[in-house]
């Protein structure tokens, strides 16, 4: 799959259509992948794509907003691009998307050739990027079916007390390194609520109560925006199941508002719009 990406990247750079191609290359452990920015044709052959390419590259696009850029995008990355386009964060005219068909990516394990496939990929239905200019890989015959959330259904079987205890343990583990925020294409606020000093929403101490507010509000700020790419969970050094929070909000977004983020750049996300006569559960 890597060769057509390289050919296209070479063509784009040669014709000066773009200044930079963002993709993946083999990392120094010889097994995993890392993001690569190609500015020069001589580096084009370093580009790869396989199941180790876990990062969401749409994360980098805002920094190149005013420059012409090509990006290698698997479905998750392309959904991230749609989400950012919807929020007027990118200029589609300056962007060239090399879409790749994806059958799921692995968990991020340094130097491990036999890393497991990510859990969310096993439930994923979106194998073709929802937006692209050039597609690499074989398009499957069937259209994507509705997403499924067996993990959420399973977790909801627990009692409130069990759920509380489970998350309490996760908050205990959080070291608030903010890796989840930095890996996320949706977390781009210049000033995050977590850095606000007056009022101090998230206190400086490393305590479960502070981590609770960080983790809950981080996830909630991504409601109706999270594209299910799993970058936050892969970046988390203490293995907090962040996707469980994100996927719960995704599931409710579909159930309550019929909205799935990143499938189109045009549809307004649920919190940007409303219906006057909708009936929602909310204690109302």
């Amino acid at each position, binding site marked *: 799959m890597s060769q057509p990406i390289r050919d296209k990247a070479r063509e784009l750079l040669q014709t000066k259509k773009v200044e930079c191609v963002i993709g993946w290359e083999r990392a120094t452990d010889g097994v995993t992948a890392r993001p690569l920015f190609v500015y020069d044709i001589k580096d084009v052959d370093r580009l790869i794509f396989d199941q180790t390419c876990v990062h969401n590259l749409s994360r980098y696009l805002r920094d190149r907003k005013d420059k012409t850029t090509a990006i290698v995008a698997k479905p998750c990355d392309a959904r991230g691009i749609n989400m950012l386009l919807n929020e007027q964060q990118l200029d589609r005219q300056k962007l060239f998307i090399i879409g790749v068909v994806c059958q799921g990516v692995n968990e991020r394990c340094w130097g491990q050739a036999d890393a497991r496939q990510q859990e969310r990929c096993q439930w994923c239905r979106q194998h073709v990027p929802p937006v692209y200019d050039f597609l690499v890989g074989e398009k499957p015959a069937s259209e994507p079916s509705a997403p499924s959330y067996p993990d959420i259904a399973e977790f909801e079987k627990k009692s409130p*007390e069990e759920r509380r205890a489970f998350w309490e343990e996760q908050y205990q583990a959080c070291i608030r390194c903010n890796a989840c925020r930095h890996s996320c294409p949706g977390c781009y606020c210049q000033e995050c609520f977590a850095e606000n000093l007056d009022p101090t929403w998230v206190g400086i101490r490393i305590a479960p109560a502070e981590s*609770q507010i960080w983790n*809950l*509000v981080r996830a*909630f700020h991504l409601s109706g925006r999270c594209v299910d790419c799993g970058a936050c969970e892969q970046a988390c050094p203490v293995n907090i199941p962040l996707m469980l929070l994100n996927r719960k909000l995704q599931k*409710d977004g579909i159930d*309550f508002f019929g909205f799935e983020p990143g499938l189109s750049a045009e549809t307004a996300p649920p919190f940007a719009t*409303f219906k006057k006569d*909708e009936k929602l559960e909310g204690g109302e």
Partner: protein
Amino acid sequence: MVTAYQPRIIGFLCNWCSYAGADLAGTSRISYPGNIRIIRVPCSARVDPLFIVKAFQYGADGVLVAGCHPGDCHYSEGNYHTRRRLALLHSFLDFTGIEKERLRLEWVSASEGKRWSQVVTDFTAQVAALGPRAK
């Protein structure tokens, strides 16, 4: 002497309807449980879900958000946005172990002093029945 458990409830009230409604309850001498601490906000849409999570972090046992009836918002459409946000937050907090019953969204107009007292009485009883929140 054993005193009965008294829940602490935070109420976010919209300035134009619910706060006036609560005021009417006061001037009409309608009594209701004093467990609620009222915070006046310009509109129910001013209630960032962050405020609610923060209230729970600070030890609130319940949070009540009250605003104008749909269609009556002073800012035309604030409460429609509140309704969407709260619906999602409600289910999300329940997922993380803060029970659904601890958060409520109500519409109380400026003329509904009686209804306001009823809402607070009901909600206080509901939260009290759950007992203190595990810390």
